[in-house]
């Protein structure tokens, strides 16, 4: 996979979330992603960036334009040093929530993107990587 363009945005407040979503939209528009795929990507990203704020308090996101074979897309990495997730499989189930949310965030975000990977260590933090291809 070739990385073409990359930007890191720190997340510590809701204002950062608004900025992050705007930047993500700019990147997606620049590579010519359809409105539907943009909406799916940004909605998934919105869920994941909220998790950073709610569970870890702060963290950072990296937006990257990537290319593999004939495909171009956007990869986003969400990284925090929060409490981590004890049971990742459980967290990926619809309707499961340790907080007061609907429990749709992680499984919902996974359904909206082409690639989804979550790595979490209790006490060290969580890193989620997603990719949405242009087509």
């Amino acid at each position: 996979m070739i990385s073409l363009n990359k930007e890191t945005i720190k997340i510590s407040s809701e204002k950062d979330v608004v900025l992050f979503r705007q930047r993500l939209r700019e990147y997606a528009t620049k590579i010519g992603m359809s409105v539907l795929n943009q909406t799916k990507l940004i909605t998934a990203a919105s869920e994941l960036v909220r998790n950073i704020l709610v569970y870890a308090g702060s963290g950072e996101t990296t937006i990257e334009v990537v290319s593999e074979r004939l495909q171009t897309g956007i990869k986003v990495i969400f990284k925090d040093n929060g409490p981590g997730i004890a049971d990742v499989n459980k967290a990926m189930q619809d309707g499961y929530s340790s907080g007061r949310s609907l429990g749709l965030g992680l499984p919902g975000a996974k359904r909206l993107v082409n690639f989804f990977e979550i790595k979490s260590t209790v006490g060290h933090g969580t890193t989620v990587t997603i990719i949405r291809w242009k087509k």
Partner: protein
Amino acid sequence: MDRIPILKMGPFLLVTIQVDMYDRLALNLENDLIIMVQKNGSKGVLIDISAVSIVDSFMGRIIGNIATMSRIMDAETIVVGMQPAVAITLVELGLPLSGVHTALNVEKGMALLQKKLADDLTEDSESEAEMDDNDQSE
């Protein structure tokens, strides 16, 4: 503090969301709307989201909350103008917004609210008429 304006139009409240929503803003709107419904005795709430490009699970939940809360307060909520991409994304996310009335645009939403209000009035007058009949038979 950031707020989304709520307009009073006769028995209804009208909200047009023109900005990128974030959680605090959505929570304020939920709170403000319920207070306005109570203060004005509103019978309907119309929320125009035609300019909203992202509705995630949190904002979807707020929309559902507003509908449920207003129903408890005797007001109907209608969400209008949802972009097709937002509708597709919401369903894939797993949030079909069941229990929320929707209409394609503000005009149709208003017509729906007015129809519901008219139905309520006829139901009220019918039940009153029935009570009158009961009085006579006694």
